[in-house]
């Protein structure tokens, strides 16, 4: 509405937008274009370790110069031919889905309980959820190693209780990755869920009860549908970064815990194959484009509502 403020600020305003805009273009958008470029080149042992796509070629027979553009599709071809990549993608999606579901199952009741707590206590309860987020992510993953190890706390406890005789090792398996990732991403689920549930008018549930709906039915028919935006936002906030997760599977997963983030890391650091790493990144990005756009849509709508 305040069209004038905008016009007034035109001079200073240009700068206000331009500085972060240029920064993001240079350090966020351009890098993707370079990755796209590299993904079509060939790996060579050189600095940088890939071939240029366009070359000026001198044709001696005719005495002409040609601009020769070579698009190497083999990096992408390899991804369809080698099982490793497809399996890694599928496994990443599987792990991300399980993580999202686990976060939702643990996080929803938590968010709901906090939203129903007396207003004076909500702040503290919510802070307790966010607090781990302020401590190092790496250290929180690390904490699980001591718990999940073969001679770790869970194993020792199970042996002491007589449930197993052998040391029980969860570490270096998919299960350890599920636990670790759920642990790390839980606050990201609780936060948006709490935000929608807290805004919910309690009179709605009273009205449902007054009209004869039992609490569980009222929950299913009133609370759940109204908290859907929070569920979507929270799920995307967990799912998208989970797909590309690297640290958790690297530390808690076994050698056979294939995830695309690890594949990319290894192509880059172990094999020094930049073009394949770039192709993997492009493919991962293409896969994530739709969830990211949905996330931005949800995020944008919440911003509009907050106005």
């Amino acid at each position, binding site marked *: 509405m305040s069209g004038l403020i905008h016009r007034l600020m035109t001079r200073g305003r240009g700068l206000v*937008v331009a500085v972060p805009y240029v920064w993001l*273009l240079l350090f966020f958008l351009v890098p993707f274009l370079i990755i796209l470029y590299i993904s079509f080149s060939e790996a060579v042992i050189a600095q*940088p370790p890939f071939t240029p796509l366009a070359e000026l070629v001198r044709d001696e027979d005719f005495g002409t110069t040609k601009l020769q553009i070579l698009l190497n599709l083999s990096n992408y071809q390899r991804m369809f031919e080698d099982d490793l990549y497809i399996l890694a993608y599928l496994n990443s999606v599987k792990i991300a889905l399980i993580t999202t579901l686990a976060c939702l199952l*643990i996080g929803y009741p*938590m968010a709901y309980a906090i939203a129903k707590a007396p207003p004076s206590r909500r702040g503290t309860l919510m802070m307790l959820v966010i607090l781990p987020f302020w401590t*190092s992510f790496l250290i929180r993953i*690390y904490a699980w*190693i001591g718990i999940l190890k073969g001679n770790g706390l869970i194993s020792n406890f199970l042996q002491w209780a007589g449930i197993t005789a052998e040391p029980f090792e969860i570490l270096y398996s998919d299960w350890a990755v599920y636990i670790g990732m759920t642990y790390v991403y839980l606050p990201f689920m609780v936060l948006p869920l709490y935000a929608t549930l807290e805004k919910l008018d309690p009179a709605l549930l009273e009205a449902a009860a007054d009209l004869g709906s039992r609490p569980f039915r009222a929950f299913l028919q009133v609370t759940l549908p109204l908290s859907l935006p929070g569920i979507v936002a929270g799920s995307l906030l967990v799912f998208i970064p989970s797909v590309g997760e690297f640290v958790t599977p690297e530390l808690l997963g076994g050698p056979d815990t294939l995830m695309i983030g690890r594949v990319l*890391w290894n192509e880059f650091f172990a094999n020094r194959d930049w073009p394949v790493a770039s192709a993997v990144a492009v493919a991962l990005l293409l896969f994530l484009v739709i969830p990211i756009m949905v*996330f931005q849509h949800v995020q944008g709508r919440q911003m509009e509502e907050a106005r």
Partner: protein
Amino acid sequence: MKRFGFLSWALWFGYAFLYVPIVLLVVYSFNESRLVTVWGGFSTKWYGELLNNDKLLGAAALSLQVAAVTATMSVLLGTLAGIALSRFGRFRGRTLFGGMITAPLVMPDVIIGLSLLVLFVSMEQLIGWPEGRGFTTIAIAHTTFAMAYVAVVIQSRLSGMDESLEEAAMDLGARPAKVFFVITLPIIAPAIVSGWLLAFTLSLDDVVIASFVSGPGSTTLPMVVFSSVKFGVSPEINALASLMMLIVSTGIFIASLLLARQDRQRARDEQMAMQGG
């Protein structure tokens, strides 16, 4: 929460899930034994060894510097971006801008790291800058994703702020730049502070992006922790983790005490206003 029903159980289970690992971590940092899982008596010797570990301390110093620079740049850029998004309505290229601001919130670290590395390499070839990789490239990379978080924090604070405050200042004769510094900035100051802290924490926490864009001789604390953790647990890391946890929780504790006091004061003031009205 009169009955200790399902919800309470779920809540306490959630908190236990979040905190038991952290508590165990701290407890075992005082373990005499090198074997993390066997209690060998109380000891603070790992803290002592930590203080003699020059490699760790050097990495920590680098990380803190990077984090401080990152946080400051992120606040500058993120505040500008937040203002543009919440106050400028529609402008050309806004969709792309909004997209670039929210995408880093969910973008996998490996992609950001890889893409920034190839950018730095290409830039060095083209214009000779940045020369090699290290402090500067890590700070730039961290700023790029941390500013997105700051922008979101600032944007939501600005959206919640009554726009007529700015109009009133202008109506009373203040020029736009003055309005920003005298009215808008003081009002969003708390959001700027929390944005700074958030960016600081994010930078201090990152291992993946830093691994891509750091060079020889610039190893950050998370990178050191990551490589030593890969070879299993060590009580020294427990001690380090406990120290970091102590610092963070002290900071948050003080902040929440201040906030609570402010809230109480505010409640008292409002009551006074009602009675005096």
